[in-house]
């Protein structure tokens, strides 16, 4: 069976730097898997996610999505099925509804079914945002609410792979627990494939994620966690 994602001999260095962040890094992700990537600050965890959705360009190696090299897929098409949520959630200065429906204003998602207000309300509730209304300004939400809204928005375009970059790093304990719970549910109930970068020791109750540590310019599977 073709893996959902396959990274082969990936090498990367920041522009103007000779030091490699990744040196022939390899990893395979099957559909439905829940991957946690841990590692110290500066190890390149965020960069790895950005390389998968082509927000950065590698120096060597290849990344295959459903067997196709990602460089052969139109960037907008790739990013409509491989959705990346940044560490600091970004909102436009508009209502919650306008922010949530933003993906549908882009040509690549124009033909996808738009969720109605009822569906959005139901989703808000599932994302612990029942007190948020669709017509309120997204800019006035707390960072924890914005983070959940950003994950929800990414899911609305129904990606096949969700990349979450330190989704709890800026959140308090309560908000972080909500995000962890959402991630767990997305994998167990909705069968979403997730790659989450985190420095927090996250141990879900209903699922055992494959945990990798990013060290020495490569990914290492933590056998002890399984």
């Amino acid at each position: 069976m073709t893996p959902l994602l396959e990274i082969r001999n990936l090498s990367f260095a920041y522009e103007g730097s000779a030091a490699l962040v990744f040196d022939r890094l390899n990893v395979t992700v099957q559909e439905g898997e829940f991957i946690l990537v841990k590692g110290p600050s500066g190890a390149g965890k965020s960069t790895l996610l950005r390389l998968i959705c082509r927000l950065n360009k590698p120096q060597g190696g290849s990344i295959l999505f459903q067997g196709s090299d990602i460089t052969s897929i139109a960037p907008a098409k790739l990013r409509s099925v491989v959705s990346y949520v940044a560490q600091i959630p970004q909102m436009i200065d508009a209502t919650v509804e306008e922010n949530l429906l933003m993906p549908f204003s882009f040509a690549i998602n124009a033909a996808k079914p738009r969720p109605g207000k009822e569906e959005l309300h139901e989703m808000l509730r599932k994302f612990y945002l029942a007190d948020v209304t669709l017509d309120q300004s997204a800019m006035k939400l707390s960072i924890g609410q914005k983070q959940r809204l950003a994950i929800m928005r990414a899911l609305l375009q129904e990606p096949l792979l969700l990349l979450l970059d330190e989704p709890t790093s800026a959140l308090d304990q309560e908000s972080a627990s909500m995000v962890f719970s959402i991630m767990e549910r997305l994998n167990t109930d909705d069968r979403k494939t997730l790659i989450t970068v985190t420095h927090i020791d996250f141990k879900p109750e209903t699922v055992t994620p494959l945990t990798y540590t990013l060290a020495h310019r490569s990914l290492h599977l933590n056998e002890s966690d399984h």
Partner: protein
Amino acid sequence: MNQIIDISTGQLLLALVFILIAQASSFIYHLGLNRDITIGTIRTFAQLFLMGYVLTFILKTSNSFLVLSVFMVMVVSAMFIIKGRVKEKQIPYIIPTFLTMLVSYLATAIFVSGLVVGITPWWEPRYFIPAGGMVIGNSMSALAISLERLFRDMRQQKELVEMKLSLGANYREASLDIFRNAVSAGMIPSINAMMGVGLVFIPGMMSGQILAGTDPLIAIRYQIVVMLMLVGSTAFSSVAVMLFVRRRCFGSGEEVLLTPL
């Protein structure tokens, strides 16, 4: 019409009293502008006298190659002035900007002298050089403003652009607001000039024609053509340059290439 009154060398030097006022202001209030005022004054004299002699020679010889060479020098000089103001190191914007400027200014100057004024040949220096000069001078400032705005906003809003890219936007959709703001920032001075012309100020070209003895009713027709030409050429060159340069802000994977300075 009255014969134009020549300005003698002595009278020209008398006008330097205005520079003395500027120098005194800078000196008294420690503005630190004395050196720039001096250099600016010397350059004004040198560049305009040089231009005067060149134009006299070109008008006498009336050679199309010479006319287009002067035009080319003006566009190259404008490009260097833009490069000095924009100071962008990461994105290679100079060649697309220069080529777009050359094509759009040439097209505008040919349209105005050949079709609107209807002069034959279209490169007749008495019309083509001033028309080209006004288009280049006006649009150069607009392009510098637009380019500065484009690069600044792309850097400041990088995370927002990347958020849109991550949600399936192509590079055009992700940077649409930045593109619009950059183009309109460059165009606003030309549009404002249309609002104030004839009320707040009398433009240089019209003043010059009236001083040279032209009927004001003819001078205003030329000035209207000039105002419309400036707005149109500024819009066209700004949009075209922004389209080309914006693409260069993104890599082959439509990733944002600009990094914070």
